[in-house]
């Protein structure tokens, strides 16, 4: 996988974010009308998620409509940025050279305090591996591809 972004640059989402794997160019890699607000938030160091105006449920930023009530419009709300480690894995063999230079690194799933699961990069305090249940707080940084992304800093000790 490669990207057309270089480290430290501001991403122009109007051009999309190209993801190539072998001879294939993969779809749905770019901000769409449903996800633009998330990436605009990342630019401002804000973690934006969706919320149903009718039933009030918080939802993953990729959702287009409310899968629960099927009726409510969604609006963007800023998450507190706090949550817990739901699961994790330290990658030793990366899927491509762009990441292998950083290996080992930890990818995982965070349960936001709002009840939404996000896949992310976990940055353990002082290295090592996190534990399920550890508290996390959002941070923003450019990862290996040059893309600025929300990551989560791990604070040891369960909530």
């Amino acid at each position, binding site marked *: *996988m490669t990207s057309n972004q270089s480290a430290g640059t501001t991403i122009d989402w109007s051009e999309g*974010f190209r*993801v190539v*794997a*072998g*001879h*294939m160019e*993969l*779809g*749905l*890699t*770019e*901000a769409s009308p449903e*996800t633009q607000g998330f990436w605009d938030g990342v630019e401002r160091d804000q973690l934006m998620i969706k919320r149903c105006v009718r039933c009030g449920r918080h*939802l*993953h*930023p*990729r*959702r287009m409509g409310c*899968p629960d009530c099927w009726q409510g419009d969604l609006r963007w709300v800023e998450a507190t940025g706090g949550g817990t480690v*739901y*699961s*994790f*894995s*330290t*990658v*030793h*063999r*990366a*899927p*491509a050279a*762009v*990441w292998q230079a*950083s290996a*080992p*690194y930890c*990818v*995982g*799933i965070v*349960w936001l305090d709002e009840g*939404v*699961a*996000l*896949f*992310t*990069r976990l940055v353990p305090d002082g290295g090592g*591996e996190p534990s*399920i249940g550890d508290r996390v707080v959002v941070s923003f940084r450019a*990862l*290996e*591809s040059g*893309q600025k*992304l929300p990551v989560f800093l791990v604070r040891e000790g369960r909530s």
Partner: protein
Amino acid sequence: MSGHSAAHGGATAIVGSATVVAREGDDRRRTALELHVEAARRAVADAGISRSQIGAVLTTRAPRSYDVRQFNMRVLNELKVAPSYTSEITAHGAGALSMLQIASMIVLSGTVDYVLCTSGNCDKLWIDTVKTNATIEADPQFEAPYGPSTPSLYAQVAQRYMHESGASVEQFARAAVESRRWAVHHPDAAMAHKGEITVDDVLSSRLIASPLHLLDCAPWYPGGNSSAMVVTRSERAESHRDDPVYLLGWGQSNTHEWLTDRLGLDGIAPAESGPNLTRTGAIAAARQAFAMAGLAPGDLDLAQTSAPFSFLVPLMLEQIGFCPEGEGGRFVGGGGVDFDGGFPFNTSGGYLSYGQSGQGLYLLQECIDQVRGRARGRPVPGARRALVHGHGGPLACHSILIVGSERG
């Protein structure tokens, strides 16, 4: 299942089957299309029917190494058939077994008599399977930019499984060890020539994505394979061969595309009790299959599961019902699927040691060979009934078939 369903266990049968294997180093590098076509010709010949009797042709989705928009139409034209019905059946890696179930529904409708199903690929001969697979299993926008490998996505489930059930890496390693022992006896198994391994070998192999070591992970098949099957109603099958393999029961469950979508699922099976990663659709698929077959796990002589990582052996064993939920690790650790004396499980070596080729029916072919008493590897003496499980996506789509050499 609705009460008046005609899809009762044993109503349909596989009347012809064939599997074609390609290996790295073959004289000629063969394409997935070529393998599908050769398997199809052989399966139709094995069924003893003419091509004009084929009422429907189903294929798995276009292999990544042969990425055309309507792969099924390419197969049709190579065979010079023009059936009434055709489609690619796609539910990730579960699609191949789903195809047999849909073929059964088609012939039970009475609309056509014979459905030809083709499956398989040989991606490893043509593309970088590690790189491309990682980008298919993760959401390209919200997950892939973090650099997950395919093992690291499945490892999210493994970590939860260990956390929730107390299963251990030693128990996972045991599954890899026993798979290798079956593979050593199978002429097509990728790891047959590597010999047996120990739990220590697994745990001292390098970490790929914690907690998974190299030997906890299935190798991509060094080549590829294609299997084709002809499905018809059982009475028709019996009219032209005395050893059809009956489809006794089947089930499916499809829950998500991405792991974080799975965690948005609650209130419906298999997440009735709240969001989770570990109660997979295999639970629901197995329940449906056993109900249709009127059988229980104890009635089976052997089983195959799509377990690309060692922890999935105990997880699938418990979810299909071979031991109580939460007990898979202890079941495997206690010798439950030992090559010597355990329940015959992944008898061709499983993905872990046969190798993973994806979108195929090679695990079903192993079941067919075993219940017909024609195993290519180590036979299970007296085997009559077998279960095969397929899954795809990151544990997203699950499909199960129970087959047998006897109709009831």
